Structure formats: C-alpha cells, structure tokens
C-alpha cells in the first residue's frame, strides 16, 4: 500500500474551512443587510472599489474566496460519496476544476479593479 496524496486536497480544505468559519458569516450578514434594503456603507461602490483596489484588500478577497471555494468543493465531494454517488474520481475532478476556475476568475476580476 502506498501513502496517500490526500494532503494536497485536504490541507487547503482545512485552511478554507477555518476561513469560512471566521469570515463568511459576517460577509453574508453584510450582503443580507443589503438584500433587506439596509445597505451597509461599506458596500457602496466607492468604498468597496477602494478596498479591492488596494493590494492588501485584493489579497484578502482572493484568499477568502478561493480557499472557501476549495473547501466547499472538497466537502461536497465527500458528501456526494455519502449520498451514495460512487463515481468519486469524476465528482472530484468536476468539483476541484470548478473551484480552481472560480479562484482564477476571482483573481482576474480583482486584477482588473
């Protein structure tokens, strides 16, 4: 039996899970407030654009979005298996590729700001 390469996908999953736990709830609160018509000042075009134009801001947004995407993709892969979907290689490939594409898209949009 050979050692598994699972750490390649698991480490970013664990990092992403931590990022989701600390950051995503408060981000959802902000967009939820906007959805309810109580737009937080921080979501105005000027303020958010200024934040995303800043190098640190770019890095934070990219880190949060790409790691959270990866973490959800990995967890969803395991969930598919738990629900009885046994085509694990196919499921894993589709989900991981989707997460990577999402991360690349986020990076490209951030670079345009």
């Amino acid at each position, binding site marked *: 039996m050979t050692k598994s390469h699972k750490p390649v996908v698991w480490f970013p999953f664990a990092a992403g899970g931590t990022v989701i736990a600390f950051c995503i709830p408060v981000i959802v609160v902000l967009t939820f407030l906007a959805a*309810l018509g109580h737009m937080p000042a921080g979501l105005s075009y000027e303020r958010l654009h200024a934040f995303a134009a800043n190098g640190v801001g770019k890095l934070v947004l990219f880190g949060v979005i790409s790691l959270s*995407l990866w973490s959800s*993709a990995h967890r969803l892969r395991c969930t598919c298996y738990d629900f009885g979907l046994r085509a694990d290689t196919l499921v894993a490939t589709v989900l991981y590729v989707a997460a990577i594409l*999402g991360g690349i898209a986020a990076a490209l*949009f*951030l670079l345009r700001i």
Partner: protein
Amino acid sequence: MSRNPLVRAVPPTSWFFRQPRYLRYMSREITSIFIGAYCVLLVVGLQRLSAGQTAWEGFLLALRSPASIVFQFLCLVAAVYHAATWFNATQKAMPLQIGENFVPGNVISGAHYVVWILLSLVVLYFAGVF
C-alpha cells in the same frame, strides 16, 4: 462446524437515517452546498465591481429580489452552523498540553468563538453597520 457468517450490507443511499447523529453530520456537510453557491455569488459580485459603478449598483439591486433574500438567509444559517461545528471541532484536532495536563477543550473552542465574534464586530464596524 463450518462458518457461514451473514453480511448485513449498509444501504449506501439511506444509511444516514439510522442514527440522529448521522443526520447532524449530514447537515454539517450539506452546508458546503450553500457556502459553495455563495462563493460563486461573491465571484459574480467581483466581476460586477470590476465592470464599473452601474454594474455594481445593478448587482446590489438584484440582491434585493425575494429569491435572493431567501437564498442569503439559508446561506447565513449554513455559515453560522459551519462556524459552530468547526470551532467545536478545533479542540479535537488541536488539543493543547501545558505542563502535565491538557487545556480543557471548552477553553480552546471558546477562544475561537471569542476571536470569531470580535473579528465579525470589527468587520461590521468598518463596513459602517454601526
């Protein structure tokens, strides 16, 4: 006497109804669907932000549709549930031994909750919520 053991297979698509704790586990795992979908929404938001002020304001307006409100509410529940289960798990993944004894698990998880709440308040403050 020969052996003739009976193998009772686990039903692969319904095993999680066998015990309440399996349902709790599955609800934790299912949060990933909402978090993943929400991240896609964030990527779309970044695209709109990069496309200029009109595009961004259109995005904010679209967020106010009833479907979006329901979706974001579900995402909020999922995100908070994920956070709680994640912080509760930290004491298992990273036990801390100081001297002879281990730090009580509640202290490790509790510290994560405190940092989480402080960080969230700071973000809300800088976002102008209060």
